[in-house]
């Protein structure tokens, strides 16, 4: 039984198969994701009631919260894939980790930008250096940059995989800090709204579009990650027979 499963796993994880599968799955995530974001954003911007304190300004939450969630989610994908790559010597896992980094950096950048745009009129400041939540989010962005720079600096792919996976695993500590910073310290940033013991502390009409956008952003991330994994696999396997064969077939058509 176990042997059968490992064999299935190895076949499943073979680069040509992953290349094919990722290509087939990607649109099935991207298209529903895009439609959900359009629907959720429209509901959030036009149908949801204004907030009793912030008025219309609270609506930036429909981009800020999904981005913040994915900035941490992408990191966990990157670190977990890195750890799997290290432990089981699985090249494909390293390809997934490498593909997740720029996406995570983009979502972190979006989180910091939307937060600053909202923070200036509401809090009275763009960014506070001493604030634990804002500082740890900025460190998260620099961790992504560091990860990408480390990969780019090492020519040997196998060495780059190992070194960057270690960096990703070390950085997990910061993700925990980002998540709990508002509970452990007195931060300017408000505490958890969605994941509390008493359930979400938000009116239903405001909450529904946020949940739709959370799902939409996650699907887009998944589909986009698969597209990047495809490119990464193709590049890593550029000297393999199956890639050459495929390229030759493409060339014949052109």
């Amino acid at each position, binding site marked *: 039984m176990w042997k059968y499963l490992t064999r299935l796993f190895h076949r499943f994880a073979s680069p040509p198969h992953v290349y094919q599968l990722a290509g087939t799955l990607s649109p099935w995530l991207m298209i529903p994701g895009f439609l959900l974001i359009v629907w959720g954003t429209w509901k959030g911007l036009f149908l949801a*009631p*204004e*907030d*009793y*304190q*912030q*008025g219309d*300004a*609270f609506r930036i*939450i429909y981009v800020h919260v999904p981005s913040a969630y994915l900035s941490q989610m992408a990191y966990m994908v990157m670190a977990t894939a890195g*750890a799997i790559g*290290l*432990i*089981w*010597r699985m090249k494909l896992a390293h390809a997934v980790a490498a593909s997740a980094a720029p996406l995570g950096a983009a979502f972190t950048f979006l989180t910091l930008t939307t937060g600053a745009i909202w923070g200036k*009129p*509401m*809090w*009275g*400041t763009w960014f*506070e250096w*001493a*604030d*634990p939540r804002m500082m740890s989010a900025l460190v998260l962005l620099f961790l992504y940059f560091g990860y990408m720079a480390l990969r780019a600096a090492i020519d040997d792919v196998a060495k780059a995989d190992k070194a960057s996976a*270690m960096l990703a*695993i*070390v950085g*997990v*500590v910061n993700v925990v*800090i980002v998540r709990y910073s508002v509970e*452990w*310290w*007195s*931060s*300017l940033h*408000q*505490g*958890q*709204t969605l994941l*509390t013991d008493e359930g979400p*502390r*938000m*009116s239903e*009409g*405001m909450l529904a579009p946020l949940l739709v956008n959370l799902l939409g952003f996650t699907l887009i991330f998944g589909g986009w990650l698969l597209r990047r994994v495809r490119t990464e696999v193709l590049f890593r396997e550029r000297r393999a027979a199956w890639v050459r064969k495929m390229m030759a077939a493409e060339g014949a058509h052109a």
Partner: protein
Amino acid sequence: MKPRQQRMLAVGLTLAGLAVAAALAFRAVGDNMMFFVEISDVVAGNYPENRNFRIGGLVVNDSVKRELDSLEINFRVTDTRCELPVAYSGVLPDLFREGQGVVAHGRLGGDGIFKAEKIMAKHDEEYMAPEVAEQLAKHAADKMEAVASLSPEECRQS
């Protein structure tokens, strides 16, 4: 032990070591990570002298006084035990309200008034429509009042 299990152990130990290191580091830093100083501590004299620091608390109800011909504003901040007068000149953030959380950056003057250079409003994690908030206002009446419970003398002695 198989090489794979050794690698698994290495990754696991790295994570465990990091967690311990981080926990120790944060224990050591501890209170310095606080974004602001409590009002009771400031009134009792426990605050960094000759440099700027932050105070945090609630804006006391009916304490905000604005000048008609300038941006001067005076109000009191409380941690529900003690209170501290604050003076500020400038534009206030949208979420600045009586009974709401506020963080002020500045220094304490010799007259016991906190001269704020920057005012930041702290928001809570509640989001609701204005109509819902109105309905809830009945319950909010018996919620914590933004007033000091101790007298100024008691605060200075504590």
